[in-house]
């Protein structure tokens, strides 16, 4: 899945994202995209919370959020890495779709910045 979100004013896109499968031992559970390192991570975190994600205990430069269904979004500020960790109870064939829904939440949050 790829997305090219537009700015709120309909101007040129600020980011270009693609969702790819992440290194994971649990099949199709982890997905990733990469954001520019220079982003405003605190503001993005605020937008993700406004979208209904709940902050989780963190460490170092890592932001962690949980969804109501137990999925997780992790942002690594120092590298721009974003990991979408689908809950392990989601059947394997539905994990990609669950990841895409999380990805959509991120994209909309970026658009609101």
């Amino acid at each position, binding site marked *: 899945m790829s997305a090219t979100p537009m700015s709120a004013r309909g101007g040129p896109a600020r980011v270009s994202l693609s969702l790819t499968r*992440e*290194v*994971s*031992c*649990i*099949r199709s*559970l*982890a997905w990733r995209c990469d954001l520019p390192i220079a982003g405003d991570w605190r503001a993005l975190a605020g937008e993700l919370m406004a979208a209904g994600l709940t902050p989780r*205990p*963190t*460490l*170092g*430069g*890592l932001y962690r959020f949980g969804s109501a269904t*137990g999925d997780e979004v*992790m942002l*690594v*500020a*120092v*590298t721009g*890495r974003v*990991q979408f*960790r689908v*809950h*392990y*109870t989601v059947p*394997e064939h539905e994990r990609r779709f669950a990841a895409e829904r999380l990805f959509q939440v991120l994209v909309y949050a970026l658009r609101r910045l």
Partner: protein
Amino acid sequence: MAIEDLRGLFAEQSLTFLAGIPYVYHCHHYNLFHDQTIDDALGEVEGARVRTIAAHNAFREFLSAVFAQAGATTPAERISLASEVFAWMGQGKLSLSVTPGGGAARSPSLHYGYAWREKYGSRVKRTEPADAVAAGFAAAATELAFDLPLDAISVIEHRCVAAREAECEFALTPSTGHAAKPAIDEATVRRYVAPPVRGVDEDRIVQISNGLLEFMRGVQGDERGLVAAFNVFVAAHLPGYYNETVYETMHRVERTAVDSVPAIEALMREAGQVCVFSTFGNVLLSPEWEGLVGPPTGVPTDVMSFCTAIARGLGFGHWLISAYEPGKRLVLRCTSTYEVPFYRSRYGVARKPRSYFVQGAALAMMVLAESVNWTERPQLTNNYYVELFRGKPRYRVEQTKCMMRGDALSEYVVDAL
């Protein structure tokens, strides 16, 4: 009392305790491989028996300490607290319906059965149950809830998620009890450590391992009693379980099948390899690690330091790099491990080096440092494991000093072939 408040840390030795009993973190790859190793050595039936007894003993001494510290005195309190602690550890959510005469337990989500199905379920058909640890726990919790002696309750898992059942089910029945052995608690552990020694890159290793220890303090089972972290299932576990299964198995093989000893020792070492490849490897590739330390650089000296820090952060003991020449030689030392206190207090002084887990781990650390291109974000698949570890050997490991044998510390030398 919150379960978090039961935690203890012997900081300078990187050893962790719950209610004064040692605990460590391992991932599902290691846990499943460890159990398979025991079954490979003893056969499925006897392997399951040894594993269940070891879990029973380990949880008996652990829950006894938990109940004492938490002031849990009634059967209802004890059953409730035991289930809560088991889920907190990431071992799964187990419902116990028991009386002094036994009863039943069931769960749709146990660490071993659930992870086995996730890892192998689509490719392998299994008929034997996978949850000896939960079985031993259930028996121990029932005995202690009703103040029964050790082994007053026997247990069998007759349905298992790993065998494609919807839930795991256990039957608990009365048995003949006997006196428990003294617990291996923090006081015992402290008798079997050497003064901590600084190793290569010590300051950075301490900083990282402290960060990891802090992160692990926030790790606990979810509503199903499982922990998905670092892209694997993680569980807090009792070294007593690992140690009793390994050493009871080794001693039995040494008594009954001497010719098999080298092969079984190699299997025990391989469990250490699997731990480093799977647990350490997944930690290194995880966003959690990237947030704490940064992305893997692929520099061998970094990988070596990071692996040492991970070992300490998971509560494996004070591992240190005594010397490391990339591509040639690693000298890893330990002033404490989770194996030594168990062996020395249960069996006395060993006649030969016995720290199989760290032997395999040291070899695997060399392989991860030298042979893995970390910057390419490798998939840590079974095929990749086979490629790294089952081809032509590139390194060999020798344990040159062993605290179980009475040496001042433990030392593992890995040389390039």
